[in-house]
């Protein structure tokens, strides 16, 4: 590490109306270093990065790049200065080839024509140099997620970025792909490039970082190095209190199979089979976790069981031994279904509705809330909703607050409250803590564990492998529309599940 940091952000303060997004944040990166920026959603990480890329100007503080105070006013200035970014949502044009994506925005040597031949040659050179295998002539839509990420890194390297920001780069990768990525990143730091790693996956942060800076509510709450820290300590710095990362899973006697899925095949949005011939049982008092890289059929399974997507004929879905495959969602709910959907603002709650309206969204027509004359019983609704808000610790000013004004974690709690009051027999929880703060996630996990104790059969679908490993009794791994293995949680390892997620059926050893 050289004495002079390559980037220094000093005393950065950025205010928005009513919010201080960054307050006196200081942060620096040296050549050859991976400096992690850790924090929950809304902690101020993305504001800080937007300032670095010139999308915002700081109210106070300065950016010092390569030793000189610098004002960056647009992303292209940042690129020209040698700062690159790999966005969480890839900034690639799927219908363009790899070479075209790399060449985009660069001056061509053959104006007004593109010069893809020269670009492709240079891409191959960089590929070799950095172990980044990408074929420049392929259209990006044909590439896997991992390959696309290599294209993103290629774009930065092609522009000779000295500093690279990686925003949640592992969110969509299998554990093996994460390992490969880390090798590439290490090679880049060894060349003297600096990396800013943004992530909330604590074990990855521990594995990759040289230094870690934690943000909470716009302020730096700590700076540390992995050797002097632990996941629990990092979580505490993020949340501001002690957090239980792995929930306790008390012993529960397993009941009968309450959800049976036999030979389920489901069409995806493109008309091809997204789920093919899948069978599994979920027992009362059990959480069956489904692990897999997104897009391997998990969403379609959840929607098919919830009655939102018709399965191919011949498929069987049984709740307590009754075939519900031909019943609609309402009829399935009458038989004990509860569903916490993946896209909570699209399928789970109505953003424009108040908290109380969302809480009674499913059973507002029942006698409990509607009188015989067809009018709402407002007193009963208010009593019910106030109780739920309290019981599920929903942070909301009033029960009449518009739901879209709540944080992701609190919206999820509203949905959980609604779904769990019905005392379900079958619970589908899809990505229950995605985009949710650690505190809320901890609470949601405890509620899932409580359902397990009640004897509910829970199907947990999550891309967060830690969540699946921590909560499940058994883990089913999906690959390419099929369940390629169901393993007991006690026998499961991250590595084993990771190989299965990549479609490797027979792990060695």
């Amino acid at each position, binding site marked *: 590490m050289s004495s002079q940091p390559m980037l220094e952000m000093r005393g950065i303060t950025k205010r928005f109306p009513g919010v201080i997004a960054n307050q006196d944040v200081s942060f620096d990166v040296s050549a050859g270093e991976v400096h992690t920026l850790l924090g929950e959603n809304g902690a101020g990480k993305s504001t800080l990065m937007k300032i670095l890329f010139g*999308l915002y100007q700081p109210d106070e503080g300065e950016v010092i790049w390569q030793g000189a105070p610098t004002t960056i006013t*647009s*992303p*292209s200035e940042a*690129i020209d200065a040698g700062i690159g*970014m790999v*966005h969480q*949502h*890839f*900034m*690639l*044009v*799927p*219908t*363009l080839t790899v070479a*075209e*994506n790399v*060449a*985009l*925005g*660069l001056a*061509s040597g053959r*104006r*007004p*024509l*593109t010069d893809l031949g020269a670009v492709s040659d240079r891409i191959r050179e960089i590929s070799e140099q950095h172990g980044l295998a990408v074929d420049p002539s392929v259209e990006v839509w044909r590439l896997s997620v991992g390959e696309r990420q290599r294209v993103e890194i290629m*774009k930065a390297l092609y522009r000779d970025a000295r500093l690279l920001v990686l925003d949640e780069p592992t969110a969509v990768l299998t554990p093996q792909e994460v390992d490969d990525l880390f090798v590439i990143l290490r090679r880049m730091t060894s060349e003297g490039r600096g990396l800013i790693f943004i992530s909330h996956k604590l074990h990855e942060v521990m594995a990759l970082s040289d230094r870690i800076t934690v943000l909470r509510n716009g302020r730096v709450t700590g700076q540390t190095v992995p050797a002097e820290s632990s996941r629990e300590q990092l979580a505490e710095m993020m949340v501001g209190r002690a957090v239980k990362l792995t929930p306790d899973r008390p012993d529960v006697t397993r009941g009968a199979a309450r959800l049976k899925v036999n030979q389920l095949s489901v069409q995806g949005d493109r008309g091809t089979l997204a789920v093919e011939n899948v069978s599994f049982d979920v027992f009362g008092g059990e959480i069956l976790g489904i692990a897999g890289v997104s897009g391997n059929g998990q969403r379609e399974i959840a929607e098919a069981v919830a009655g939102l997507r018709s399965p191919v004929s011949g498929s069987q879905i049984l709740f307590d031994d009754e075939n519900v495959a031909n019943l609609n969602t309402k009829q399935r709910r009458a038989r004990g279904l509860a569903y916490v959907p993946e896209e909570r603002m699209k399928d789970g709650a109505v953003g424009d509705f108040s908290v109380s309206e969302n809480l009674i969204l499913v059973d507002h027509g029942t006698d409990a809330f509607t009188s015989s004359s067809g009018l709402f019983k407002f007193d009963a609704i208010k009593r019910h909703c106030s109780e739920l808000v309290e019981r599920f610790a929903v942070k909301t000013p009033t029960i009449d607050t518009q739901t879209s004004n709540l944080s992701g974690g609190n919206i999820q709690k509203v949905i959980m409250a609604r779904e769990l009051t019905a005392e379900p027999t079958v619970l589908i929880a899809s990505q229950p803590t995605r985009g949710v703060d650690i505190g809320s996630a901890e609470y949601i996990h405890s509620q899932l564990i409580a359902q397990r104790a009640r004897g509910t059969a829970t199907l947990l679908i999550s891309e967060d492998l830690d969540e699946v490993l921590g909560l499940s009794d058994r883990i089913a791994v999906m690959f390419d529309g099929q369940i390629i293995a169901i393993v007991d949680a006690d026998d499961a390892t991250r590595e084993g599940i990771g190989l299965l997620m990549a479609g490797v059926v027979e792990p060695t050893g």
Partner: protein
Amino acid sequence: MRDFFTVSILVATIASGIRLATPYLLAGLGETIGQRSGVLNLGVDGVMQLSAFFSYWAVLETDNLWLGMVIGLVVGLVMGVIYAVVTVVLKAQQGISGIGIFLFGLGFSDLMFRRQVGTPKPANQLPEIPIPLLSDIPWVGEALFEHSVVTYAAFATVPLLAWMLRSTTFGMNIRAVGENPQAADSLGVSVAWNRTFAILIGNGMAGLAGAALVLELGIFQPNLTNGLGFIAVALVYFGAWRPVGIMSGALLYGLVAAVVLQWKAQGIIPRGASDIAAMAPAVLTILALIILAGRVQAPAALTRPFSRH
């Protein structure tokens, strides 16, 4: 039917089909460029009507056909600037903005026609310019190489635009901002400028299409386009956003219409089936292009305004 398969009739029918196809082709090609950049313009028909009127008026007053075409182009470009301001700068919803442009074009061209011309008066028509040598080829020459300069230009534009989209930096930028404007922006490619240029190309070509229509006829009438611009927008979808696809669609549409007219003239189509036969061009073109185009996806950012935050 025997009368139809004579050389002179076939040649006349093909020539007629090409004439009919020309305005569809010009308008459809222009709309393709706009849509590839992510901007839907439902106002094509209105732009065509405006440019048709001003082009006609100019020719009526000056007898100068070149001026008429230039005016058509300029009116298209002016409408393009307005549309770019509304959709790119102000980021308005594109569908409704296009309908606004259409209504404006329909109403304003009608108003101007009544105020400035009143009764339909014939103006100069575009002359057919036989291409030397090529037009001497027996049969083929007469069918393909005895057309107006706008028709030649329209067909010459097809490979030009295909090449531009595929091989130039500008074309690549157009494709990028139409598919993933965030990505283009993150690399310093200006979404606003590229979309604006694409809109200008599209509206300029719609303006030329209006001029081509009216100068081929030599007369203007309110609502002259009769929905032509909307069919051109549909051709873009069915032509799978590719210049050659648009050309196939426009040609098919024009040729089927010409064959139907020829068969009606020869009594091959019984008069009772006349109205049903009138639908044939639209139905056949849509069917053919659906089958040929397959499952082509629209530009992913089509109709979506771009903003950074």
